[in-house]
């Protein structure tokens, strides 16, 4: 179980204090899929980055299975089974897809294990494991490989930041079933997509750095009708 208690995050901008996350209190239970949605700039990515340790909170607590992890380094949190699939995947020079998957899993995979993982994100292992993870890969390919790293890692708290971005419509079915199958630990997905909202156990709506609504997937979906969903996408 993950608990976020009284979490605040603010930055200085032009010598003015700017509040980005305001008094966030959330509880995430094991075996559930949570979807966080909200306008562009509402603070969704920032929240996930604070959980991963990439961004330092201003105040508050992050408690994972009873332990306050809010002062641990990124590495320590990674080793505790927290995993964050970036909104904008990072590229390298000289590292291959295979290298990242091996690092994620902490072991060397054989071809059939690679196949298992990559086929879940709709990629054929033999075409990809020896490709460099650089900007020659398309946006959608990078996104899928980012997802594959989380699968390879097999952590207990998996966070995905707009995993659907750049993924073609035809692959959506697989994408949603992928999150369905991740049950076991906690899964948190940031998304604007109705089809992902539809499979959520719980939906959290952020607005301007605050949790403005949360509840079961069904209940929340009926509140966030198609029209407001469109508005939530920021367009």
């Amino acid at each position, binding site marked *: 179980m993950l608990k976020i208690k009284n979490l605040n995050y603010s930055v200085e901008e032009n010598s003015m204090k700017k509040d980005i996350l305001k008094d966030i209190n959330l509880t995430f239970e094991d075996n559930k899929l949570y979807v966080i949605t909200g306008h562009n700039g509402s603070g969704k990515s920032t929240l996930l980055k604070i959980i991963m340790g990439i961004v330092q909170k201003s105040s508050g607590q992050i408690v994972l299975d009873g332990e306050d992890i809010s002062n641990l380094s990124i590495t320590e949190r990674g080793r505790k089974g927290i995993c964050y699939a970036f909104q904008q995947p990072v590229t*390298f020079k*000289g590292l291959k897809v295979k290298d990242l998957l091996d690092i994620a899993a902490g072991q060397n995979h054989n071809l059939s294990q690679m196949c298992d993982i990559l086929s879940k994100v709709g990629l054929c292992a033999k075409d990809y494991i020896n490709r460099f993870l650089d900007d020659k890969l398309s946006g959608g390919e990078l996104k899928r490989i980012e997802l594959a790293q989380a699968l390879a890692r097999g952590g207990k708290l998996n966070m995905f930041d707009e995993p659907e971005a750049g993924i073609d419509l035809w692959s959506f079915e697989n994408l949603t079933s992928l999150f369905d199958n991740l049950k076991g630990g906690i899964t948190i997905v940031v998304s604007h997509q109705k089809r992902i909202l539809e499979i959520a156990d719980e939906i959290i709506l952020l607005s301007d750095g605050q949790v403005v609504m949360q509840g079961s997937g069904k209940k929340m979906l009926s509140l966030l009708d198609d029209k407001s969903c469109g508005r939530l996408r920021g367009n």
Partner: protein
Amino acid sequence: MDKIDRELLEKVAQLHKVPAGAFNIRKNGQAQMRQSTKEIEIVPKSSKSGIDIIIKKGVKNKSVHIPVIITLGGFKDLVYNDFYIGDDCDITIIAGCGIHNKTCQDSQHDGIHTFHVGKNSKVRYVEKHYGQGDGSGEKILNPITRVYMKENSQMDFESLQIGGVSSTIRKTYAKLKENCVLNIKENILTTETQYAKTYFKVKLMGKNSKCEVVSHSVAKDDSVQEFVSDVIGESECFAHVECDGILLDRARIVSTPKIDAINKNASLVHEAAIGKIAGEQLIKLMSLGLDQDQAEQVIIKGFLEN
């Protein structure tokens, strides 16, 4: 041949045993072992130190190994190697130099290599440089490579400096005729107070000639690297020079590009990026459980090996 010799040969030419095919192993200025084949002839020069490597027309899928090792301190070696590669060949040439110097006097190897690449031929040339031995004497390598390419030929040149070289100035000159392709890949690691300078001058003389230079370098501690490239497009041609450097500690890398499109249809591009390891790369790897040191090592290793 002793343990150190074998270690150096393994490092610079991946040689574990006497290679198949043609080879020449030079140690401390003397030919140690030499073998020609029906297709590849290695002949010592009579007027100066060095060898001629003559590869007959049409020789395919063959390799030549010509490693040099130096195990003496205070030794300066100057050698001229000329390669005559016939038309329609497809061959691999493994050169390279390893210096073991545990004395306080400098050891130096200057290899002057000239390639005459025949029409339609394809050559892969690998030159690996390495130094070891903890004496205060420097390990110095100053190679000069000249490449003359005839029509439709291709040369893939991999120039690697894997560590331990105190000082190096590497100069490469190439002239390309019609439809020639020259790919140069350079990976350099410097540490401590080492100095490495690379200078490329490539003349794209023939129509449709193409040159691609990719330089990946890592400078650690107080080391200094310089990268100078000078590409001249005399015809409708294409060149892309990419100089990427990672800086650690107090190191410096200076990149100087020069591109000169004499012909207005020449398309010449130079890209350079020098700086520390991107923060987001470290963050990504740390989120996958590596600590900062491990993450840096993974990034540097990948960068230098590919």
